[in-house]
């Protein structure tokens, strides 16, 4: 499987204040069709993208939180969330929309080092 690359997308921005997370998600959905070894790491404010109960109607911007729930259907199953980022924000796994793997920063750092490509969003 020489052609399969390990590609990690790193989400570090809050949703809605800027478009990076949303356009990042669009990129992941396209890459998912290419049968690479994809993963997504949510670090810092990036974890807010997975927060339950987002309702963007009042700000007039299209919401996209539910699209993260569709990633499973595209075989993007490796979703990693940084434990310290959750704690610092007073959040727990229960606050998140999708099933994720909560890891320490050391564990995520080691996974980063296995990647062929890291795409920051």
């Amino acid at each position, binding site marked *: 499987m020489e052609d399969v690359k390990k590609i990690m997308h790193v989400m570090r921005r809050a949703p*809605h*204040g*800027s*478009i990076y997370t949303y356009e990042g998600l669009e990129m992941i959905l396209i890459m998912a069709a290419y049968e690479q070894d994809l993963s997504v790491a949510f670090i810092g404010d990036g974890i807010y993208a997975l927060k339950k109960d987002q309702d963007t109607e009042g*700000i*007039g*911007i*299209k919401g996209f939180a539910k699209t993260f729930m569709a990633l499973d259907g595209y075989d993007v199953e490796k979703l990693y969330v940084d434990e310290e980022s959750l704690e610092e924000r007073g959040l727990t796994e229960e606050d998140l929309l999708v099933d994720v793997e909560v890891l320490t920063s050391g564990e995520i750092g080691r996974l980063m080092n296995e990647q062929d490509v890291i795409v920051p969003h």
Partner: protein
Amino acid sequence: MNIGILLKEGPYNHQASDTAYKFAEAAIKKGHKVDAVFLYNDGVTNVTKHMDPPQDDRDIARRWNELGKEHGVEVLACIAASKRRGINDDVIIDGAEITGLGTLTDIAIRNDRLVTFGD
């Protein structure tokens, strides 16, 4: 109350443009006069006429155009900032205008408030 708005970021990439629009809309609804929206820095890209967002998304350029037409809000882009970023009269929407920073100074002087949105 007379209000000027300074918008420093482009459309879609940052929420600034959306918040500025919602604020202007609310001010007008309350009977205030929104005198002008002055576009600076990347903000000048708010009025490019070729903008073509997905059908279920807001059309930011058209929204500024309609606010201008329906409520007499001047929509102005700084000329120096525009030139750097490839914005000129050929690519901006009807109703928007490219002008100098002197106009912004006038806006700051003649209005009761200048409210800035950016990132």
